[in-house]
């Protein structure tokens, strides 16, 4: 199948590697390159023959809307759109698309390996054929689909990003150092990674996007991002992918 993936690191690389390993003709676009190419006179030829588009933009809802509208308008009407529902519900994403019945939400968190779960969420607009095609596609990558209800963050990203936000709040208040907070969660309650290192791994732009999405959908203060999280993103300290987040990483 011809697969186009647009979004952010490290998500596009993680899903792209599985697509290529499965034998799909796969093209990756960082979201900024994708929008630029769409707006150029040449457009993106690949879109005209795409069978599946996987959209994984998490940074801002406005940019996600622009991206989904532009790509869904350029795609053949029967191309499947799989939208990452970490920061907006699948229903919201479908509402931004031309032919919304072919939009299905999903959720994965890097690192990603064959055998891992992919959360699948139907948008209110998703039709039965799209849901069946989505499940079949994820199976081709060797991922195990788990159906969950629609909503920003789905299950895993919602729990995890709220934990990361709580750790960032504790760090901002000077309760303990980043290293002490991470070590405490690993040794005191058996977390597989420290939450601050985990935020660096996912990308703090994505973590902020998940919290913004939850706050916007539920309109509840419990999801307000820690100001330090917002500041880290403003300063470009997004984690591993920029070489610096709560920790520093070699380029």
């Amino acid at each position, binding site marked *: 199948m011809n697969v186009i993936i647009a979004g952010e690191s490290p998500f596009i690389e993680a899903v792209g590697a599985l697509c290529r390993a499965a034998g799909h003709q796969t093209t990756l676009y960082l979201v900024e390159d994708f929008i630029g190419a769409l707006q150029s006179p040449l457009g993106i030829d690949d879109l005209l023959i795409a069978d599946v588009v996987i959209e994984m933009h998490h940074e801002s809802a406005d940019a996600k809307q622009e991206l989904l509208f532009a790509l869904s308008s350029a795609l053949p009407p029967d191309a499947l759109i799989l939208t990452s529902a970490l920061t907006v519900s699948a229903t919201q994403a479908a509402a931004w698309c031309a032919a919304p019945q072919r939009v299905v939400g999903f959720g994965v968190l890097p690192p990603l390996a064959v055998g891992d779960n992919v959360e699948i969420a139907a948008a209110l607009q998703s039709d039965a054929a799209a849901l069946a095609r989505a499940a079949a596609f994820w199976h081709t990558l060797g991922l195990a689909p788990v159906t969950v209800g629609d909503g920003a963050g789905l*299950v895993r990203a919602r729990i995890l990003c709220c934990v990361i936000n709580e750790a960032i709040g504790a760090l901002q208040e000077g309760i303990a150092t980043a290293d*002490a907070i991470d070590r*405490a969660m690993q040794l005191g309650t058996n977390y597989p990674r420290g939450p601050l290192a985990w935020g660096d791994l996912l990308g703090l732009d994505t973590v902020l996007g998940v919290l913004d999405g939850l706050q916007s959908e539920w309109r509840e203060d419990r999801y307000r991002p820690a100001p330090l999280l917002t500041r880290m993103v403003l300063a470009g300290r997004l984690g591993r992918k920029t070489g610096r987040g709560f920790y520093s990483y070699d380029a």
Partner: protein
Amino acid sequence: MTTIANVTVLGAGTMGSGIAQATALAGYRVLLYDVAEAALATALAQIGASIDQGVARGKIDATAAARARVALHVSHDLAVAVQAADLVIEAAPEQLDLKRTLLRAVDAAAPPHALLASNTSSLSISALAGATARPAQVLGLHFFNPAHIMPLVEVIRGDQTSDATLAAGQAFALALGKTPVVCRDTPAFIVNRVARPFYGEAFRLLGENVADVATIDALVRSLGFRMGPFELVDLVGCDVNFAVTQSVYAATFDEPRYRPHPIQQRMVESGRLGRKTGRGFYDYTSDSGRQP
């Protein structure tokens, strides 16, 4: 810095017994105190059995085990228990008035150089220190259950805790072979605070019907966690989990992130407390293993 040789542990419950065991095995002279003599006898038997098991499994050196048995004594007289203590670790029930009354009595009977530590998981160290005339020598040493196994100790600096007291607390945790993390005196410290959303969002996802208990647990395990939120609550006890949630919510004057969920209350009120009652989010009474 105060040299610590004699350690008195107050309270022979699960946490106190575990702390006494870890301390005795590290070569300290330990006095375990409880008002209830029966509790002391039970604790001694359990610690002895636990040490035997450790030796049998090769986790505890036989010489250290023999030394620990000799080094561990019990008392139900508080003044006697603390009179020669260099460090007192309080592991009484989580009630502010009870702990303050206890620490006031300890302050009066313990040597002036003794450090007073609390194993509280949710109360303010500064509030406990206020019951004594030596607030600079009061700190938090928060162990995790089971205390003789779990490697972390949160070393909590109260508002008036001195640098020397904090350093002695860290050194003590290291001497027990544990990893100390220094933490300011704030509601629920590090672990119990940062873990709140792990449970809180899981309860909400369940309440919103996004997924069922087994699906949420399986998805969370898929991230590398050893247990999902509902399995863990069943292990800890729904009542204990609900009490911690309520305590943090109250201590932060109703911060919405920590708001308890009606599901927690319903589980407790219906007596489904988890493994200890055979029924929680899962059923543990079936012969064929755990059922959703």
